[in-house]
């Protein structure tokens, strides 16, 4: 047998350590609660409401993200050079912003005493501390990630396909709808589920901008935070529940995502 080289050994040990770092906390969480406790949660009206708000806000944010993000991603994929780099930096801004700071910023823009607060209150719209705020917070945080990943998808579409469609008489709209979108369809579905998975777990921005009001803006993440102070055991069970939802979504992403044949 060939003697393993030191470098390969180093890589393997390194990978093992990282794997442990990921798996140990997950294992700890799963061990902290029992299936019975989780089943009990599923009949608790407060938990059900929080779950409902979590899923409702995520799925409400989805069409907004899609309508706003998809054309942006496509436009960005067609940009080149300096313009593209500048736009990408703009997109990275919300990505590197600490979530709590993002929540503050949203509050200052759309809150009652914020930049547009007066405008909104004159129109009779209150954003903060409503489900709308949860949705807006999700759109603000998650859309840049969605756009970024969709840009990669669109970059992968051969430009010639679109040109062939144009020469065959398609308008640019038709070329986009009948050629580009169907070609990235699978990847796009995967990205949408990924966006939901990301939305489900948001915390910082939501707690600042939408508040932690049970029955109105309290999502599962916020419920975990609240119950951790009064009843840690319930927090563990809730955490496991949220983790299971995320795992389901992750599994769906991987079933849909186009596989890279080179790997």
């Amino acid at each position, binding site marked *: 047998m060939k003697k393993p080289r030191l470098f390969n050994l180093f890589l393997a040990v390194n990978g093992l350590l990282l794997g442990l770092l990921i798996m140990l906390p997950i294992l700890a969480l799963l061990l902290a609660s029992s299936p019975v406790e989780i089943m009990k949660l599923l009949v608790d009206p407060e938990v059900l409401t929080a779950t409902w708000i979590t899923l409702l806000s995520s799925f409400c944010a989805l069409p907004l993200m899609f309508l706003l993000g998809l054309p942006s991603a496509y436009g960005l994929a067609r940009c080149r050079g300096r313009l593209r780099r500048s736009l990408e930096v703009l997109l990275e801004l919300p990505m590197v912003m600490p979530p709590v700071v993002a929540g503050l910023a949203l509050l200052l823009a759309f809150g009652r005493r914020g930049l547009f607060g007066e405008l909104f209150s004159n129109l009779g719209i209150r954003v903060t501390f409503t489900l709308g705020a949860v949705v807006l917070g999700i759109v603000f945080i998650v859309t840049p990630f969605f756009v970024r990943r969709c840009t990669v998808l669109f970059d992968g579409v*051969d430009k*010639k*396909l679109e*040109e*062939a*469609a*144009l*020469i*065959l*008489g*398609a*308008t640019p709209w*038709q070329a986009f709808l*009948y*050629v580009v979108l*169907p*070609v990235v*369809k699978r990847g796009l579905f995967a990205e949408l589920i990924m966006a939901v998975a990301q939305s489900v777990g948001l915390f910082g921005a939501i707690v600042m901008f939408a508040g932690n009001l049970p029955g109105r803006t309290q999502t599962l993440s916020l419920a975990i935070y609240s119950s951790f102070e009064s009843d840690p055991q319930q927090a563990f069970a809730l955490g496991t529940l949220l983790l299971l939802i995320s795992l389901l979504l992750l599994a769906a992403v991987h079933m849909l995502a186009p596989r890279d044949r080179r790997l």
Partner: protein
Amino acid sequence: MSGLNCVVHSPLAHFKLDLELSVEPGITILLGPNGAGKSSFLRLLSGLTQPSSGLIKLGERTLFDSANGIDLPPEQRRIGMVFQDLALFPHLNVNGNIGFGMKVRGSGRVERQKRTAHLLDILNIAHLAERSVTSLSGGERQKVALARSLTTDPELLLLDEPTAALDPTARGEIRDWLRSVLVKLNIPTLLVTHEVEEVAYFRKRVAVIERGQIVQHGSFHQLLSEPTTEFIAQVVGVNYIPGEVTEVAGKQVFRSKGGLTFIAPFEQVKPGPACLTIYPWDVAVYRNLPEGSPRNHLHGRVKDVVLRGDRVRMTLVAEDKLVAELSVRGYQALGEPQPGARLWAVFKARESRIENFQE
């Protein structure tokens, strides 16, 4: 007046595209080395990019006119184009690909099916209708791409290196198929290629492009007799022997202008002026004429020997001139003949091609 007439000026990365070209019904070949601006030119014609100035007219319609600010978008130009890499839609099957142009123009499902079926029939590919385009062979993909470009009744057909991506066997088949289809259609067609072989095969009007300019434009025969640049001179590397087809005792033979007699596949040739072509790599060279050889031969003097990569090109001159191309090993086996040596050049009748002059 049908056909394409254009004058375009457009800066490219390393030189400027300055082209004036007309394409009449039938095939015109645009020949040029790689990077001469051929594909850029096709993109300008189809409207995917804009020339900095110029005029493009197709029949009576003006597609582009910088003086009057006219610039039709690609979808209104009615030009059919087959890309070098074909760009078939991977998410549609053969029917879907071919029907695409009709669908976006708003024709109904029934009409689409009828026309697609008709077209598949004409092109002899009806058996491919339900196949996924990713499962097709190179030649089949080429056929589907052409079929797709024909559905919109194009007034001009642009074919970008239609056989370049194929393996040699498929290449011959696709060429034969293309020629028969294009003759049937008689649409003004611009076939772009960098391969001399292609020009020798189609023998139509040829425009030669180098560094963004048309350096020669005329019939295949003009190109052979008066090459104006070194690149074109390579075209002459295809052996081209002018002469006449006559009947001797009820059998057709070809008599070259130099006075030699050759036989060739005569199926589609009438007695009269004709020319015979043979690729240099189909010409074999011997010190002594092989016994009982029924093949065409010429006993000549070596005029020059040129080493090109691992191939050797030798020009033999007698009553006519023949260029032979052989491997270095073959050349060494002959004892590395030098200019002045006398050798036999031999080629098989069925590897030569003969055609009546068509000026």
